[in-house]
């Protein structure tokens, strides 16, 4: 058998291998792929997220339904077990007598077990999740509308993660690299809104241009794509020159627990920066210098104020990724601040949005 791919005779085999290598390179290097390859890839990726998100929602709904069914079965089985055990016990205590019979009605009247009590709520929650998944999966336009109505679309992608996470936005296009730098270095608290934004955008555009021209064209993509989680928090208008994010801030915020938590997840920069910033609770652009420090702005203020200022971001983030909001329901403001410092905003937060 011939070994090692060089043919039976060493020298000639080597020459032949070189000949093949040269021939392959000469033939293949004549081929030039069409220049719109990146754009096509973007289009394909853009057309997929709807399916991916739909799949995710279907999966979540299906899993919740299966879990509720399993919970039901487990509870029934447990109830039957307890009932059998009780019957067995009574059978042992009074063998051969019929005194157990009068006890039966008393057992039937005893209050229901708490496990049985949560059965229906569990079903309801499962069904609600399933229904929400179906609705959101069936109507991606609703998601985009929600995102745009919140002002999510006005912001170009903001720093999602640390270094290089710029996301040269296959989908989102524009701004990414610059945002990465801003996320890393973190604009000085003292800097004003416009200047920092301008610098980051300038860098972004520069990078984007050089890396891939097509990126710019994709900048018109739906807002959800930009999704960058941080969006919300930096909200504060750092990312968006228009400052629309700030506008949305004050009005709606009810400051629920969910809100604060979401902020935590989305925000990248550490808490310490925010504390230094010490801004005013109002999220207007005037206070932006402090807010530039990041989403943490909210944390620097008093609890109440913080929760309020955070609320806008909340709304944005909730629209971006429903799963996050669901998970966040249990946390309170303090804990969120702590997590903010420890937990870097990972790309995952951006991915779902990118998926949408």
């Amino acid at each position: 058998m011939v070994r090692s791919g060089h043919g039976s005779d060493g020298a000639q085999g080597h020459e032949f291998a070189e000949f093949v290598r040269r021939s392959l390179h000469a033939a293949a290097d004549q081929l030039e792929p069409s220049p719109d390859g990146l754009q096509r890839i973007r289009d394909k990726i853009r057309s997929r997220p709807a399916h991916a998100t739909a799949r995710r929602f279907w999966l979540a709904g299906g899993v919740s339904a299966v879990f509720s069914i399993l919970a039901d079965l487990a509870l029934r089985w447990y109830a039957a077990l307890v009932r059998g055990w009780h019957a067995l016990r009574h059978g042992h205590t009074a063998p051969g007598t019929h005194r157990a019979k009068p006890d039966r009605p008393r057992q039937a009247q005893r209050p229901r077990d708490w496990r049985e009590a949560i059965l229906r709520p569990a079903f309801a929650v499962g069904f609600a999740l399933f229904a929400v998944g179906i609705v959101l999966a069936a109507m991606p336009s609703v998601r985009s509308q929600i995102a745009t109505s919140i002002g999510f679309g006005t912001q170009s992608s903001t720093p999602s993660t640390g270094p290089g996470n710029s996301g040269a936005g296959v989908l989102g296009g524009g701004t990414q690299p610059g945002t990465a730098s801003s996320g890393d270095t973190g604009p000085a608290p003292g800097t004003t809104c416009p200047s920092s934004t301008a610098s980051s955008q300038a860098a972004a555009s520069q990078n984007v241009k050089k890396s891939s021209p097509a990126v710019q064209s994709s900048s018109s993509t739906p807002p959800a794509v930009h999704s960058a989680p941080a969006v919300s928090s930096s909200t504060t208008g750092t990312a968006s020159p228009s400052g629309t994010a700030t506008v949305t801030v004050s009005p709606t915020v009810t400051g629920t627990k969910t809100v604060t938590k979401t902020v935590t997840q989305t925000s990248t920069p550490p808490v310490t920066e925010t504390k230094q910033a010490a801004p005013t609770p109002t999220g207007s652009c005037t206070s932006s210098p402090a807010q530039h420090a990041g989403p943490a702005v909210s944390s620097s203020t008093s609890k109440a104020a913080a929760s309020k200022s955070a609320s806008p971001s909340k709304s944005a983030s909730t629209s971006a990724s429903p799963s996050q909001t669901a998970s966040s329901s249990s946390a309170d403001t303090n804990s969120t601040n702590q997590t903010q410092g420890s937990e870097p905003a990972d790309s995952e937060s951006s991915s779902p949005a990118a998926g949408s």
Partner: protein
Amino acid sequence: MSEPQHGDARPTHVTETLVATGAGMPGAFVAPTTARLGWNADFAVTELYSLHYRTLVRLAALLVRDTPTAEEVVQDAFVAMHDAWQRLRDAENALAYLRQAVVNRSRSVLRHRTVVDRNLVKAPPDMPSAEHGAMIQLERSAVIAALRGLPVRQREAIVLRYYADLSEAEIAAAMGISRGAVKSHTARGMTALRSALERE
């Protein structure tokens, strides 16, 4: 990695740096050693596209023998890589993933093409196919023509070895076979290729 010598036009971005140093040239299948962690999926797609798209398309063209299909294959591989980025998280892994995806999808294309050809009613001889023009360039080479006659696995092994300049381990990973099988396929393919060229 060496800094580019462009003075004023010094690139400030990793992509520009890599491109400036020639990392995107044909045959540069090994990802340059740069900090690549922390990329997100979109950024990774853009970067890897600028570095490896052309080479991957050529590799796929050698496997599927037509450029538009090769581009489709590579684009689909990039889309799959984008979806799987959460799992990959690194350019090295992503490149290996891309290579494997290209090889697998090329194999699927060939399989599909075989089935289609089997059930296809033959077209009139004077009616060139759509990919005819793109294939002409490849067909000019005798080696490429001989390569067409090889079994798929042998062709893949030879292309990955002598065009992509991959090691046996990398070829094994891309083809999803063992290193011994890679050696075997390569050796048999080269023997068959030589005999085919000698016959001509």
